[in-house]
């Protein structure tokens, strides 16, 4: 039981971090980025190719994170430009369709060029006992990195001026503009940040299981579900929902069996949305 909960927490932490990037971009700019999973895959591929070119692991990971941030910046500067001219549901819809196009282009290119590629980072050392349960070293390093990233994210939003500026835009765009915050610059910053988060998830995920070229779509769907369950625009909500769904998923998988466990996970997500449409920690309108 304890082992399952710990496994679930590791998975959930990654779900949560992944969802945080998606939820920020949506909450801040009304942009739904369906190419989000592909940003993670691109970062993973950059790490993979750098390591193939004999770059040591840490600098390679650095390059991957850089690639993630860069992909966010590129989205902001290119395909999202027409999206910024729209408002409301039209804006969400156009952003969704355009980023779906980007996702296809990236998926198509990677599957065409590198159909077999997948990133696996091996962390040395034997299993470590936690609460009397042996855990793989890879899982532990992955959770540690994820937890650090989460803590950094929460500190950024609570304690720094820039983080507060971003939150003020999420709460009230007009008000933020009146006190001299440029919503567009904040959105660009957050798109870059979401790319960095996607890259971190790709790297930590690859310590537990391989991240393949076809993983993009599945990552996006997971992030989307966790985002909605946690409440759109709420970072703590995304983290909480990620951990909860991760635990539900792992426990259901070990006690009930695979295909029903996914259905239980999905039902739990659907019920949360129906009972609390604003999400676990979302702001009711």
């Amino acid at each position, binding site marked *: 039981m304890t082992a399952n909960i710990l496994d679930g927490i590791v998975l959930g932490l990654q779900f949560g971090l992944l969802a945080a990037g998606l939820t920020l971009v949506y909450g801040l700019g*009304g942009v*739904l980025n369906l190419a989000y999973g592909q940003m993670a895959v691109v970062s993973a591929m950059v790490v993979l190719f750098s390591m193939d070119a004999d770059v040591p692991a840490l600098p390679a990971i650095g390059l991957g994170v850089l690639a993630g941030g860069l992909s966010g910046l590129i989205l902001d500067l290119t*395909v999202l430009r*027409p999206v910024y*001219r*729209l*408002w*409301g*549901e*039209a*804006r*969400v*819809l*156009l952003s969704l*369709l*355009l980023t*779906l*196009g*980007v*996702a*296809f*282009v*990236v*998926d*198509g*290119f990677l*599957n*065409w060029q590198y*159909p077999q590629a997948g990133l696996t980072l091996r962390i040395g050392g034997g299993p470590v006992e936690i609460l009397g349960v042996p855990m793989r070293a890879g899982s532990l390093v992955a959770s540690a990195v994820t937890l650090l990233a989460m803590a950094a994210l929460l500190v950024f939003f609570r304690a720094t001026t820039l983080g507060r500026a971003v939150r003020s835009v999420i709460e*009230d*765009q*007009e008000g933020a503009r009146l006190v001299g915050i440029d919503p567009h610059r904040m959105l660009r910053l957050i798109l870059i940040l979401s790319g960095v988060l996607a890259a971190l998830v790709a790297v930590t995920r690859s310590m537990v299981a391989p991240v393949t070229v076809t993983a993009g*779509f599945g990552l996006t*769907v997971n992030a*989307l*579900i966790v985002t*909605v369950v946690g409440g*759109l*625009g709420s970072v703590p909500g995304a983290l909480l929902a990620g951990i909860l769904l991760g635990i539900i998923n792992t426990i259901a998988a070990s006690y009930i069996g*695979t*295909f*029903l466990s*996914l*259905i239980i996970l*999905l*039902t739990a*997500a*659907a019920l949360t*949305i*129906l009972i609390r*449409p604003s999400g676990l920690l979302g*702001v009711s*309108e």
Partner: protein
Amino acid sequence: MTERFSEGTGTSVIGGAERRTSRSLASLFLPIAGIGAVLALVPLWLGDSRVLMGVAVLGLAYACYTIGFNLIFGSTGQLFLCVGALAGIGGYGSAILAETVGLPIPMAVLLATLAAGLIGGLLSWIAVRRSLGVIFTGVVTLIFALAFENLLLGLTDLTGGDGGFLIGAGSESFLRRQIPPYYLMLTLALGFLVIHGLLRRSHIGWAFRALRDDELAAELAGVDVARYRVYAAVVGSAMLGMAGGLYALTEGRISPTTFGFAQVDVVVLVMLAFGGIGTLFGPILGAVAFTVIDELLIDLGQLRVLVYGALILMLFLWIPRGVIPTIAGLIRRRGPSG
């Protein structure tokens, strides 16, 4: 949250074309008859090739799906991301009822259609009841679609799991010959167009437009927004179920990928957006165009996905409203009658 989204809608992705509806029925039936006449000629040209006729039948099945999805999403703004799942309820339902239970084929299709309509209506009723917005409706229906896909994979005794199963029922009938399935699906698509066209002209169509353009104003003017949304979802989902059922029976085998999210929902969304969301004829134009493009690109393999992505990007960067509203706009601007 809602406040900053209300700064005017700009050029909406959901097209506002075909607003002016003329009252004469001829203006509805003539274009549909024209489309039917042109598409009826296709077997004269491709009839010799079993493969190409199969592609054409699949294209028409997608046209049917897109018309059903258009009724739900284009007309009443409910983003149903379970098009494949609803078609799959029709497909698996018809196949299992005809094959395992042994019902006559028309009965099996009818029951499966009914089931799809009811489930679609239920999803819509839940969404309306909880007043979920576009994205939330999208995610809830997406979750439903993923759960359905997993059920198909898991209930191997009933569905054959990953590999699906062969449908023996109807294998001796016209459903498995080379040409008749094409005319069956064409009739279905034209029938769906007529139903959607008639709905648009009735008071229900006015309600659809009113609630799509401004939901609050429609509600204040006495339109029962909730009721019309559920109606549209029931009719549209029944269309999806019937098309899925008949396609499965003409194909003779089904598997989860026949109705998968990536294979159906994504494609249908692109077809509809290409033709023009909320227009009457957009779905059929989009389905025909994408079936042809897909066949032309068949040799590209994985590169095809990339080309699709590039096409989607170009499409929405240049003509975000879709082809039919854009052309209609050009004609209206140039035409002397205005």
